[in-house]
């Protein structure tokens, strides 16, 4: 867990609690690491990219995805049920009128099953505190800014849902197969900090 806690005091405290639980037989050595590995297994931005490419090519699926993402992604063999309990997934789609960007201002909630472990900037205080106040400025620093007449909506993952953004399908991709489209979709595009 040290990746998530820059404070070495916290890391030491966590390790101390783990050691106490192990010494009392409540936890097998390595059990926490094994559970984390199991949770992360299969988690990759390629999953999110598959969802987006399918939504781009199948309007019916896109509609189901926006209405009830947890049910819709099962059509692709994906699930948000890999953890202790199924997490609710909320999918939002970018358009010419509205661009969406996702943040967790209180911690670093992230759809690991669909995007893999989160990038370090997503967990940084700078991103978390600034993108809700000045999304256009933050997006500019990422190297891309929505057109001036595109409204921006920031989604704060402050409770139990996880979020995925469907980027706009790039122009000139009409002839591409779904697998080729999926390769165009980037992790930042799925968070909303880039176009695709």
């Amino acid at each position: 867990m040290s990746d998530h806690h820059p404070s070495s005091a916290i890391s030491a405290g966590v390790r101390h609690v783990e050691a106490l639980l192990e010494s009392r037989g409540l936890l097998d050595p390595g059990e926490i690491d094994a559970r984390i590995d199991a949770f992360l297994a299969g988690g990759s931005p390629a999953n999110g990219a598959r969802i987006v490419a399918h939504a781009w090519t199948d309007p019916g699926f896109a509609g189901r995805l926006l209405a009830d993402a947890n049910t819709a992604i099962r059509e692709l063999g994906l699930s948000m049920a890999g953890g202790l309990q199924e997490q609710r997934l909320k999918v939002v789609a970018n358009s010419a009128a509205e661009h969406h960007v996702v943040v967790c201002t209180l911690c670093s909630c992230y759809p690991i099953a669909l995007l893999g472990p989160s990038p370090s900037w997503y967990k940084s205080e700078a991103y978390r505190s600034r993108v809700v106040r000045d999304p256009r400025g933050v997006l500019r620093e990422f190297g891309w800014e929505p057109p001036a007449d595109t409204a921006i909506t920031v989604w704060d993952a402050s409770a139990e849902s996880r979020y995925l953004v469907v980027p706009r399908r790039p122009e000139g991709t009409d002839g591409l197969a779904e697998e080729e489209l999926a390769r165009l979709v980037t992790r930042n595009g799925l968070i909303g900090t880039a176009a695709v």
Partner: protein
Amino acid sequence: MADRFAPGDRVRTRAADPDGHTRLPRYARGAVGTVVERAGAHPLADERARGGAPDPHAVHHVRFAAADLFGAGDHDVVVELWEDYLEEAP
């Protein structure tokens, strides 16, 4: 339990600064927004952090104008809030 709020309802968030853990971000306190949709029902995180095992309560996505939260900005912020944090706004 019936939901207290429905999509389109105007709501005001609690302004008080509670002791202990909460999932009502400081920047969204005492603000008026509009319910977008229900985000399921979950045990209130504030009570779970105190060791309780509360019943699930409805959670809503609530849309705020950035100008109402920060005094500036032309974007919106959608915050995911337990109904416990919300009251009806005129």
